[in-house]
């Protein structure tokens, strides 16, 4: 059995003013294992994205987080900011939904690939640059060397997400959090990104958390899937189990809503 890189236990998240905080996540537990992709599925409002943001402490200031998130020996909840910053991008990395807004439009790609590397790993300019080229080649962005001096808007959507993945991998993290990584991309491009994520997970023994509402995406690459609803996990199983024999009624509803599912049931949605 692979090692558990990140262990989440009874995570609760409440957001809002101090007197009446709204509970978004009501206690979820998950394990992220090296080399395996853990899917976290659910509709908008289910609390899945918030959960992924909580890992790196990226929630708004008025969020109250409870429970436990252990990264190896380190408890992330309540970790002082200075130490959290040392972990961000270094041991746990994150990619976001829309690469056109999560890459800084006014900074060259090369700089965005190397600024955190130089901070975390102390590389000098030359080494960082060589490292960046290697990364771009691994994520299959063509013309890696010229790409370094270009800006994000000069790339296509799929290429931008690859760049974002390269940035996430730069410091060789143990955990990768992917929040809706393909939702903003063209359908034709999604498969390539997903395949890349899968290959990288295996190759680098990455523990991946894949957050998405799209069960089709989930079925493509997730090893295990947890379904969230109203801030709780209603069902968690391996991919085969979930898609062939869903236990919970909500899971069955979600699966039924997939395009193509109507054919089997013979009912319009």
């Amino acid at each position, binding site marked *: 059995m692979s090692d558990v890189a990140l262990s989440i236990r009874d995570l609760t998240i409440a*957001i*809002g*003013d101090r007197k009446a905080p709204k509970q*978004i996540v009501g206690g979820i537990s998950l394990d992220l294992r090296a080399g395996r992709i853990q899917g976290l599925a659910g509709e*908008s*409002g*289910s*609390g*899945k*994205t*918030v959960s992924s943001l909580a890992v790196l402490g990226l929630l*708004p200031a*008025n969020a109250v987080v409870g429970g436990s998130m252990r990264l190896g020996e380190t408890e992330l909840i309540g970790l002082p900011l200075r130490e959290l910053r040392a972990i961000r991008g270094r041991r746990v990395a994150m990619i976001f939904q829309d690469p056109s807004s999560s890459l800084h439009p006014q900074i060259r790609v090369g700089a965005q690939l190397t600024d955190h590397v130089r901070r975390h790993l102390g590389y000098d300019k030359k080494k960082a640059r060589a490292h960046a080229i290697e990364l771009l080649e691994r994520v299959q962005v063509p013309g890696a060397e010229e790409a370094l001096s270009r800006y994000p808007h000069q790339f296509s959507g799929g290429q931008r997400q690859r760049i974002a993945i390269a940035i996430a991998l730069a410091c060789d993290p143990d955990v990768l959090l992917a929040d809706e990584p393909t939702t903003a991309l063209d359908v034709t491009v999604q498969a390539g990104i997903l395949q890349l994520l899968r290959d990288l997970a295996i190759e680098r023994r990455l523990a991946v958390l894949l957050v998405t509402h799209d069960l089709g995406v989930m079925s493509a690459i997730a090893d295990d899937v947890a379904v969230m609803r109203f801030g709780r996990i209603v069902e968690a199983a391996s991919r085969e189990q979930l898609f062939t024999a869903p236990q919970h009624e909500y899971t069955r509803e979600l699966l039924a809503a997939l395009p193509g599912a109507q054919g089997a049931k013979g009912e319009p949605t």
Partner: protein
Amino acid sequence: MRFLTLRVPKAWVTPLGVTGTVIAAIWIFVAFTAPLYLPYDPLAQDLPRLQEPGIDTLMGTDALGRDMFSRLLSGASVTIPLAMLLVAVSMLFGTVVGAIAGFFGKWFDEVLMRFTDLVMAFPTVILAMVIAASLGPSLWNAVIAAVVVSWPQYARMTRSLVLSLRTQNYVTAGRLLGFSPAKSLRVDIAPNIVGPILVLATLDIGTAILLLSGLSFLGLGAQPPTAEWGSMISAAMQNFDSWWIGVFPGLAILTVVMAFNFIGDSLRDIFDPTSALSRTEVNA
């Protein structure tokens, strides 16, 4: 966007908003009632000259023997009503121009916006100065000059608001139901423009007061012997030692303008979504 409600929105009841409203209310009251209780005739030159502030004359007297306190109060009744009038006129004119440009578009838009751009190509005081000088120095000409330089900002704002509202579903629905452009503007668009325009107008009252007193300071607005804050400060240039001649009118301007700016800023918090006081939206 919210419709304008009659209840005082909670966001107004901030220290800033309340302070501003109180001070502005006092000044407006003074402006409209001052002539009833002036201690001395603001134009009479029969007091001892250049007296320091004392019991008889709370703010001293100027070089011609006039009571500064009376002149200050009188100045309020000159500047404040005129400023409010000026803003009302600019707002009306500018909003109409902007609405036409935004709603009907094309040709109207091009021509009307060129005029707007032309006026905005000059720094305000400079253009107002040039206009007031051309028309001849008088308080009314200064007001006209101020209106000319003030209306474009309303036009621009209204135009962009109308442009963004024009494509909303309920506006299109109205047109399909047979609303005339006038009715569409009045019923669907106007209520949603009132807020931001009102914010602009409130802040603009302060600007108008600064502009009018500035023009008077330059000799282009109120003419002697009218008691106007700006020209009183100008007189202080000749009497550097008598600090009371310049300090009090300036403080008057400062407090009035501050009051309106405080109010306008608080209003902005209510009506402008981008300056929302708290952002706790979460996309789960």
